[in-house]
Structure formats: C-alpha cells, structure tokens
C-alpha cells in the first residue's frame, strides 16, 4: 500500500497520494456499480463521465440525514452499511481535496491510514448491500442532480 511505502518515515507525497487514491477507488466503485445497470456495455464509459463529484457528495450527505431518509421498514444492517458507504464517500472527498490542494497540511501516517482503512471497510459494506433496492436508489441519486 502507498501508505506503507516508507514504513519508518513516510513521505508527505506518499501519504497524500494514498488518501487521494483511496477516494478515487471508492468513486470508481460506485460509478461502475451504477453504470453496470445500463444495458449497453459500450455506452457505460460515456455514462460514467456524467457523474459529478460535488453532486455525489451532496447525495451522500443527504442519505445520512435521518429526517430526509428515515428508511422506515428497511433492514437496519443494510441501512447502516449504506450510510457507512455514503459517509465514507463524503469524508474521503473532503480529505482528497485537502490532500491534493492544501500543501500546508501535514499528514501523519495514522491520519492517512485511517482514511484508507475506512475505504476498505466501505468496499466490504458495499459488497454486502450492492443488490439491495436502497443501495441501487443511492446509486441513481449520485447521478441525478437534486432540483431546488
């Protein structure tokens, strides 16, 4: 793993890249899961380019709000996994922004590793719920911009 590239004294560049790569791994996981529903495989890449980071973050934050999305009657473990994935996506996008653009920020190994580990957990959570209807609805919400 990038975060372990220099075990004793990690370089800031390695830690920043680790956080950034972890975000993009989750970003691409969700996009590929969504476009896989599109019937024509040759058009999936083009559809994937329609996703917007900011809209995806907004949708992920909305899912965490129990007033907007109470998920009444849904399996609590599925809801918990979905909210974990959404929370991790929003969290990592922010951290990715800091890692890529804020050079004044000093990253410790624990800071970077904790972000990478949360993405690993999100991958496991997504695997458990990917076929659930609320997970599929979340994927669509990532693509569709909310109207005011």
């Amino acid at each position, binding site marked *: 793993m990038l975060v372990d590239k220099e075990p004793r004294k990690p370089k800031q560049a390695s830690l920043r890249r680790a956080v950034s790569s972890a975000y993009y791994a989750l970003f691409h996981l969700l996009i590929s899961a969504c476009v896989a529903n599109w019937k024509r495989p040759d058009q999936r890449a083009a559809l994937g380019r329609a996703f917007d980071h*900011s809209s995806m*973050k*907004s949708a992920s*934050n909305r899912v*965490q*709000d*129990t*007033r907007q999305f109470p998920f009444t009657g849904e399996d609590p473990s599925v809801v918990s996994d979905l909210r*974990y994935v959404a*929370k991790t996506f*929003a*969290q990592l*996008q*922010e*951290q990715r*922004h*800091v890692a890529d653009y804020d050079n004044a920020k*000093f990253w*410790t*190994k*624990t*800071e970077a*590793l*904790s972000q990478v*580990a*949360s993405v*690993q*957990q999100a991958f496991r959570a997504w695997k458990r719920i990917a076929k659930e209807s609320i997970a599929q609805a979340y994927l669509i919400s990532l693509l569709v911009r909310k109207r005011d």
Partner: protein
Amino acid sequence: MKFMPIVPVGFVHQGQLARDVEKAVAKLSRREVVRVRHSVGVDSTGEPAIFFRIVLTDAASKADALADVTGRVSATLFDELRPHENWGLIPYFSFRSKSEQDNRNEPEWA
C-alpha cells in the same frame, strides 16, 4: 489578506455545540481516545461543517485495530451529536496517534 471561513451568525450556537460535543466525547473509551478537538467552518464545497481532530492512544492507533477504532469513535460522535439533523453540519473526522501529536505538537490538536 487571510480569509477565515465564516458560518452565518445564529446558525450554530457554539456554546451549546461545545456542550453537546463534550457529552458525546464522554461516551468514548479512555483506552482508545486521548482527546477530541473540534472546529466549525465550511468544507471544500462551501457547506457548513464540523471538523473533529481526534487523538488516539498509541495502542488504539495500531494498524490492525485502526479501522475498528476509528469506525467506533466516529459512529459514537455521529450518533450522539446527529450533526446533520440537529446542527445542519457535515461532520469530518481526522485521527492521529498520541506519539504523532507529541512529535508535531500542533495547537489545533492539543
């Protein structure tokens, strides 16, 4: 000129928020968490946010335990505080080990 992120006055009652954070922190394990600091501002997309800086014990910061510990700590703060519903704030969590913070000695984490 330096700009500070500003959350509209009245949007967040800082004193009440600090008390609620303190109550949530009291639910965390002392064996895992040394201290929690927080600040309110805006995130990279301009949304009001609360940023938690959490110093973990060195034992809790070990790589094999880190995912569980950080998941548990952030879930406790999230569930106790309900930042979206109660405060209109998006929560962000950062973790350091005690020895890392002792080496860096950054005031924001102290």
